[in-house]
């Protein structure tokens, strides 16, 4: 074990490991990578092509391979007909609130599990890890009864509140802080008379910031795409994007270009975020993998 740790530790100095040791990819490598890339991107590109055509054109053979001139019309129709404007605004609120809550609560709980002493710590941490395995199906019936009782159907808090904490988030922040936060730093702040809250604010948050950013991005993607509970708690009168997309085929059974325009509208914000933060998100997933 000690040997493995040492080797890992050396691996962190990227320059050392990378210096000419990693094999170069040949043309076969590039060919297969390009095929994978096309496989990943083509369905999305085709969504945009279909959204820019008329429904009639989509019912012809061969199918269209390039953009047409109908994009704005279709987007407009999806916007009005499927309530996409409201859906996007709702999803920003829901995903934003869930991200904020998850990052904040995960960071303080992760800090406690990483660096503080309290009773039943190991047991409670095991409980956190165990909850990651519980499928969401196990809570929908009681949650549905609860929101029926509270008359929260169709209200955003019904989908925000159950999402505010995440076991994965707590575990992720704990794993990060165990290594990244030097215990001496906390002790030094204590010696200066800092209360626990001040320690969190002035020591933990600044050091945890990179991991908090990664967790925020992962949580936002997850919350944006959350499907099962929202379609039970919300209706088309006050939908999130995913709920609105579910309603599209029913309302526009024949107009497939409008359905594609809706799918495009609901996906574009995240795709835009990916083109900006893609590198960080990739890094975050890989970082979480090694630690987990």
């Amino acid at each position, binding site marked *: 074990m000690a040997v*493995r740790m040492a*080797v890992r530790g050396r*691996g962190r100095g990227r320059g050392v*490991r990378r210096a000419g*040791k*990693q094999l*170069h*990819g040949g043309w076969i490598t590039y060919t297969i990578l390009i095929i*994978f*890339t096309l*496989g*990943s991107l083509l*369905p*999305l590109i*085709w*969504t945009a092509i279909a959204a820019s055509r008329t429904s009639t054109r989509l*019912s012809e*053979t*061969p*199918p269209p391979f390039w953009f047409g001139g109908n994009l704005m019309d279709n987007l407009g129709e999806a916007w009005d007909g499927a309530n996409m404007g409201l859906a996007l605004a709702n999803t920003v609120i829901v995903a934003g609130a869930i991200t904020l809550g998850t990052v904040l*609560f995960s960071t*303080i709980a992760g800090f*406690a599990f990483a660096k503080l002493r*309290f009773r039943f710590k190991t047991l*409670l941490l095991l409980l*956190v890890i165990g*909850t990651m*395995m*519980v*499928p*969401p*199906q*196990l*809570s929908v*019936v*009681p949650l549905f*009864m609860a929101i*029926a009782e509270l008359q929260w159907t169709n209200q955003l808090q019904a989908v925000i509140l*159950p999402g505010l904490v995440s076991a994965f988030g707590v575990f992720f922040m704990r794993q990060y802080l165990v290594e990244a936060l030097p215990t001496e730093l906390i002790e030094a702040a204590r*010696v200066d*008379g800092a209360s*626990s*809250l001040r320690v969190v604010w002035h020591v933990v948050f600044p050091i945890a910031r990179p991991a908090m950013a990664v967790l925020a991005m992962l949580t936002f*993607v997850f919350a944006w795409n959350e499907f*099962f509970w929202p379609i039970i708690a919300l209706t088309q009168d006050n939908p999130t994007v*995913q709920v609105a997309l579910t309603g599209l*085929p*029913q309302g526009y*059974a024949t107009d497939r270009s409008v359905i*594609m325009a809706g*799918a495009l509208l609901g996906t574009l914000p*995240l795709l835009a*975020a*990916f083109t900006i933060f893609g590198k960080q998100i*990739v890094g975050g*997933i*890989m970082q979480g*993998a*090694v630690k*987990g």
Partner: protein
Amino acid sequence: MTELTETAAPSTGEEGAAPAGERRLDKRAARRSRRYQRDVKWSPYAFIAPFFLFFGAFGLFPLLYTGWASLHRVSLNDPNHMEWAGLHNFTRLMDDEFFWNALQNTFTIGIISTVPQLAMALGLAHLLNYRVRGSMFFRVAALTPYATSVAAATLVFAMLYGRDYGMINWALGLVGIDSVDWENGDWTSQIAISTIVIWRWTGYNALIYLAAMQAVPHDLYESAALDGASRWQQFIHVTIPSLRPTILFTVVVSTIGATQLFGEPLLFSGTSGAAGGADHQYQTLGLFLYEKGWFELNLGRASAIAWTMFLILILIGLVNWLISWRLKKSEGA
């Protein structure tokens, strides 16, 4: 005395301890140190409290209450009126051919989506681990399907798999294969749904494997190369064994995901709702639960299905644990 105070509450030093005010300072220091100790003792609980409060309210309590509701007759129209039913919901489930159908579909789709997905992810990670130009572009591109929601992806794939005007049938036509009625066939619909899962998750799993591959010590490859192992042999004999814990992790996560499969079969045909096709040919357990609870208004039955799914997951978890335990043991021997 001064020394003792200093160790108990070190911050007194700042206040400039004049001899006259020493006793008052001692008192203040004692109070400070009491407050300090209270803070050290209780703040950890305050920090974990939000998580456990929310988890208790929206995770643990519903989990147990679902078990309670599964023993009752509960209608969606009047969800707060419960009538004791014993194990009736469970026995009815065992006699329900659609339950067994959903279980089998979940299992089949789970296998044909997870196995190729993880195998492809392993290969993709291996390629990404080479030194390639634009490696970050390839990584981000592989991850873009992960940013696409289940709903959007399924709507798009349902159209690509369309019988009459779908892109896939058109491509098959080019090589002389007749149009396939993807949605109405048993196997074809299950394969089509699996491809949606595979498309969305392969890149994500590849990144997890890639991270694990980069942590494999290079000396292992060097000594393997010295022994004359080809690249392929190195992959089989060095990479795969080093990745075993990671592979097990992804298998567990994918299995949990496969058991819950819901959005893809729900939206694959826009019209048939929760039935999962005209013959229930792609109805999964998740969809079956939704149909029982929200179309047939039987929340008690839905709860019983939820708990059955939970028990299946625990069973899978135990099998997984047994396998990894056996592997470890055989490795040690």
